[in-house]
């Protein structure tokens, strides 16, 4: 979509330490210029996607309840590119990581974990496999599919850079089976670049939620299971979102940092659902207006997918880097149902990809029994929502899991 007149850049668009604005009200900024940065290691800089003037530095309430500073930039419509935008010079490992950090890249699949941290695991020699996650993370969302179809060459060249950098012996591009066109397209290119000791292959996986969840994906691709509390790197894997990989390759060529993002705009209240390329920081109402506006009254607005996305309080919030969908639902899809008693049908147990027993966890939570909660594996829960989705009693299972996790996190540590 066209460049917006105004963007709002949240200083916290990633997991980790928030940035502090590096510009002042009244400053002139250009496309690709850093407007926020942090000296903390786990963080990623924020860049402006338009040229114009810094109109304000305000406070923003992000969905999920966090508050963050935000830089508001009004466009001058000229789209001047900042002088810092040039292909990075990479001679060694440190350069590579520095460039990745400077690009502002975070996990574009939704989690928003800074990529330069992910690519710098404790034991880099142990990494033998890079998994490129093209298994769309949630229903409705097709943004990664569009990336596969439109930018397959970027994906493959990004894959090669990452594979060489990590000295990994194989790359598995994981695509769900319901996207045969993407599988065909990527397979064709992957065959061309694969070589002995540097294997690139496409793996087609059953199309089911939550196939794109990191731990589920690693098991589906390699058979390895990440133990609770451990990272993919502990089983020799690095998982990267397909759009993140493609972005890296474009960044190495052009030096243009992460300033825009493809979003799936969908839901029963959207007039013309589509995938749009949006400047990071664009207010959501502008994005919806570009998609024909609301054909029916919006009763629920989601940032992210329907299973894990956050419900928004209003449509003035800006698009964040790690967003991949805006979903707007009309009345009948926004209804809530009262919870009734658990009938022990076992659907949640069957549905849980982490093999948990939600009713037992709920009982332990009710008794504030931290020890049992830990034993039952509450911390393994990734809040995918499969349990609540399948519960005929409409019980708030995911909320109970979250509260159970909080209870464990806040419990005084046991003495050893």
């Amino acid at each position, binding site marked *: 979509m066209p460049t917006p007149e105004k963007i709002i850049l949240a200083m916290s668009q990633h997991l980790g330490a928030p940035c502090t604005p590096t510009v002042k009200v009244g400053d002139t900024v250009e496309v690709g210029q850093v407007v926020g940065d942090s000296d903390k290691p786990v963080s990623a800089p924020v860049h402006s996607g338009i040229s114009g003037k810094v109109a304000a530095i305000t406070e923003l309430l992000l969905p999920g309840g966090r508050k963050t500073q935000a830089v508001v930039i009004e466009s001058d419509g000229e789209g001047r590119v900042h002088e810092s935008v040039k292909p990075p010079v990479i001679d060694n490992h440190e350069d590579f990581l520095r460039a990745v950090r400077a690009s502002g890249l975070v996990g574009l699949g939704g989690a928003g974990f800074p990529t330069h941290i992910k690519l710098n695991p404790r034991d880099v020699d142990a990494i033998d496999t890079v998994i490129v996650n093209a298994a769309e993370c949630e229903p409705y969302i097709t943004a990664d599919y569009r990336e596969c179809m439109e930018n397959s060459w970027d994906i493959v060249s990004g894959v090669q850079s990452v594979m060489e950098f990590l000295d990994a012996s194989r790359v598995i591009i994981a695509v769900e089976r319901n996207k045969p066109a993407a599988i065909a397209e990527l397979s064709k290119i992957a065959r061309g670049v694969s070589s002995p000791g540097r294997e690139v292959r496409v793996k087609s996986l059953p199309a089911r939620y939550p196939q794109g969840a990191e731990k589920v994906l690693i098991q589906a691709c390699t058979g390895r299971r990440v133990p609770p509390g451990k990272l993919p790197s502990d089983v020799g894997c690095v998982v990267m979102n397909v759009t993140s990989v493609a972005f890296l390759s474009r960044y190495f060529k052009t030096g243009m940092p992460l300033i825009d993002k493809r979003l799936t705009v969908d839901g029963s209240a959207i007039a013309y659902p589509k995938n749009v390329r949006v400047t990071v920081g664009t207010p959501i109402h502008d994005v919806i207006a570009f998609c024909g506006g609301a054909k029916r009254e919006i009763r629920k607005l989601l940032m992210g997918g329907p299973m894990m996305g956050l419900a928004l309080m209003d449509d003035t919030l800006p698009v964040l880097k790690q967003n991949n969908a805006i979903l707007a639902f009309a009345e009948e899809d926004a209804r*809530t149902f009262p919870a009734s008693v658990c009938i*022990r049908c076992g659907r949640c147990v069957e549905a849980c990809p982490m093999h948990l027993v939600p009713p037992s966890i709920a009982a332990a939570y009710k008794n504030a029994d931290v020890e049992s909660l830990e034993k039952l594996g509450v911390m393994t829960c990734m809040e995918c929502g499969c349990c609540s989705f399948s519960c005929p009693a409409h019980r708030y299972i995911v909320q109970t899991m979250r509260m159970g996790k909080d209870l464990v996190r806040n419990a005084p540590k046991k003495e050893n």
Partner: protein
Amino acid sequence: MASMDKPLIITSSPHLHCGMNTRGVMADVLIAMLPATVASVLLFGWRALAVELVCVASCMASEILSRLVMKREQTVGDLSCIVTGMLLAFNLPATMPFWQAALGGVVAIVVAKQMFGGLGQNFVNPALAGRIVLMASFPESMNNWVVPLSGTGADAVTAATPLADGAASYSLGEMFFGIRGGCLGETCAMALILGGVYLVLRLVISPAVPLIYIGTVFVLSWLMGENPLYQILSGGLMLGAIFMATDYTTSPINKAGKVVFAVGCGLLTVLIRQFGSLPEGVSFAIVIMNILVPLIERATRPVPFGRKRRAKD
């Protein structure tokens, strides 16, 4: 932004739901019992329907009154008490005096279900608890079998059940279509299997429990020199395996537990039939396994993803 007339609805994720609800699940179970209900009337006459109506009415009244007395919200709308009423009736002979049938409903709902906290909390199957209390209290009424297709009401001829008289006086075909003495809902294997297939197709029950239960009885009675087909078609096995061992509340919640539970039900059924002084073992087998459910669940709890199964948990 001003474009929003009403505040947006804020809820926690997930924002999708499969659309199934408790009432729908129970309605499916009731639909699955329809073939056996029709069969009961065809085989045992209108009095079968009357017993069914009495049990359902008694269960509904017990549910409403007990919730009222306990000052809790009314739950009759979830239809679970109707399922219990039908199951209880299925476990009674067509000649059952109405007041005794009604008493069974009170025991099932008030004692076995509501006193333990209502739906989802009872530790034994309410209908079976009702049946067992009636068996202990009114053994004569409970063993007053009608010969099927012999007319209704006062003209009905009574007879012993095939398991009780021990002799294979009915052909396997007759057994399959339910033309034998027995409780009013348990005899017609065909109707029960039809209902079971419906429940499996509607994803209400997993086929594992009935198949393993019936399979265990088949194999064990064959090993013991009985006619296995005759054994699986007689007594209340089909009814118990399809409609009662699959009861959500009183069977294990996890897959491995369900397998253990079903094998245990089959084993106990055969043991009671072979060595017990009772002719029929299905209800006691299921109730005993009901009581063991917490232990089975603990022993078969799935291991959280990525964690190693430890010797001792």
